[in-house]
């Protein structure tokens, strides 16, 4: 029987449908202003992709910020457990998961069985997360893809001193006005994200193998700089943004096979 996982994040919503151990559908949409609408739309698309009806889904696990507003979910599980589950499935050797999404960054420690044994989350402030990067892209007038590409041109960075997204944005604007090349400013922005993530990873203690998940893992510039800073190789899944939904779907499958699925 098919099962589904849905990850309603602060910026993006993903649905993964699993059937007979294989991915039958994978959808990704922006969350937008209404997480319930996003959840419904993403699920509709995933159902039409897979050819199943909602009633045919044996078990649906919701995760992400919007997990509380998914009307069709049977259970709610946090991103922490879902990213852990997804990463363990993709590579059972993984002991540390770094998930950087739109407004949260997390470092999750797994044991051999893939069980979450510890985790840390950024504090309330969203500096150093995906949304921060998006605002900087706007200020630089580059797309996310160009941002990643430009970051790889140079290793020189113009330091960004402000942590606050709003102040960092105006700092970037004045750096552009001062004629600094964009790629150096980008390295500066990346350095500030990496610094925060490195500190958080250092607090919890990084154990290899390390995998990065969440949308920011698609940013090559960030991944490479983080790799250098931590001094470890970072494994990347094929689509890092789907790992939360995949983990949720796997938990739905575990639940279906008689293992308990938490109903938080």
């Amino acid at each position, binding site marked *: 029987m098919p099962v589904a996982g849905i990850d309603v994040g602060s910026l993006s919503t993903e649905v993964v449908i699993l059937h007979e151990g294989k991915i039958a559908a994978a959808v990704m949409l922006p969350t937008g202003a209404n997480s319930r609408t996003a959840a419904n739309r993403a699920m509709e698309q995933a159902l039409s992709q897979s050819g199943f009806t909602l009633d045919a889904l044996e078990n649906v696990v919701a995760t992400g910020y919007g997990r509380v507003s998914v009307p069709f979910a049977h259970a709610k599980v*946090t*991103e*922490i*457990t879902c990213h852990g589950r997804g990463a363990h499935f993709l590579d059972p050797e993984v002991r540390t998961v770094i998930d950087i999404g739109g407004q949260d960054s997390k470092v999750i420690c797994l044991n051999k069985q893939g*069980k*979450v044994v510890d*985790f840390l989350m950024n504090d309330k402030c969203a500096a150093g997360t995906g949304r921060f990067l998006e605002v900087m892209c706007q200020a630089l007038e580059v797309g996310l893809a160009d941002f990643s590409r430009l970051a790889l041109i140079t290793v020189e960075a113009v330091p960004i001193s402000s942590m606050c997204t709003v102040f960092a944005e105006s700092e970037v604007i004045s750096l552009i006005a001062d004629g600094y090349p964009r790629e150096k400013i980008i390295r500066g922005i990346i350095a500030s994200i990496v610094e925060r993530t490195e500190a958080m990873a250092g607090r919890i203690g990084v154990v290899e193998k390390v995998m990065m998940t969440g949308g920011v893992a698609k940013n090559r510039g960030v991944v490479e700089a983080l790799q250098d800073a931590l001094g470890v190789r970072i494994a990347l899944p094929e689509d890092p943004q789907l790992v939360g939904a995949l983990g949720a779907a796997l938990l739905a499958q575990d639940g279906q096979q008689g293992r308990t699925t938490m109903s938080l």
Partner: protein
Amino acid sequence: MGYGLFKKNTGIGKLKEKIVGNRNKRLLRWPFLYLLGREAVRRGLIKFPYRANAMLVEYGMEHLRKAYQRKTALVWSSAFSPTELFYALGVNHFSPEVTAAVTASFGFQEKLLKEAETNWWGRDSCSFHRCAMGGILLDYFPRPRAFCASTHLCDGGVLLFNNLAARYRLPMLLLDIPLRQDQYSLDYVVRQLKEIISALEACSGKKMQEERLEEAVACADAARRELEVVNRWRSHPLSLFGARQALAYLYLYHNGVGSPVTPKIYNTLAHELHMKINEAATTGAKPPRYRLLWLHLPPLFRGNNILAYLEEQGAKVVFEEFSHVYWGPMEPHKPLEAIARRMLAHFGYGPIERRLHVIKTMAENFAVDGVIHFSHWGCRQNSGSLKIIRDYLRREGIPLLLLDGDCADSRNNAPGQLRTRIDGFLEMLAK
């Protein structure tokens, strides 16, 4: 969005904000109000789940009534100051920090915080002190004749009191607590207690009677014994009286040591807990799925229901750090030495090993499945030792959840994130 943890301050909350409006300031400062409150409780017009709770509210009302009446001298005291001295001398005392917590629990904090901030009280400071400052500036709090602050825990209380003493040109009585627990420190504290007594005598016009001091110490000792019994009943597997039920008792814990009423209240509570546990055991009540220990204070402001949320998920905070009995037997015949020993005994001060030892004792006595450490905004005392606590609990194999937020200022909390951390932690315990 409150994510099931916080409710917006609407309806009754807003109504209460009106009550703290300027027109009603006089009412709040009117001792008769507290007399009425006390009588209403005494006559059973207000219902409580425990008889001890009624006694506690009665005590609180009487405490506030005395603070607001002008006849007897009033001293403002910081948390963990030597309250035995006030009871023995017959001067009233008032704790702005504890009152700030009460104010927040009624949902009045916003106006007070704003007032303090408008007057340059930094937003990065502890909200208990900010709230207290707002209460002072708005003239809601009773006016003292002296300030008495101990250096226990944080410097915020001392700085607040210093500021106020200068502002009102009133005596500032500082009790400097040394880090070490040796004879030298004991003598040093005793000397300071004597000086404080002289200063209190001068500002109150009263004379300290040796027998009264011995009585107050005997009461403090009785409070210790009774609270230990309460805590033993609280550690019962059924855990009927968790942090949620016990929080109101912090008022007594901070203000009541040295009062003859305090041991009676604890004694009543202990008996009631004993009875209720027996009853619950016969009706087949179930213990909570997870037993948690809370370090530092949980959010207290009105509209937050973190503890209730945890309970809904089957995780009960069975005990909280600030209900731990930290002082040993007190010898009434050597009253000043006994008080000095109590002052020196606090685990939140001095080498971190003391706090670790207390955490271990509480975790064992209450057989907890996990510990929650709440880093209250602006509280360096509590959060400074986080790494050591974390490493220690890791070695002991006790899971630890770190939460960041604010006990009194709701604006410094991110409910969605708090909820994810809490849920993630419970999932971690579940597997």
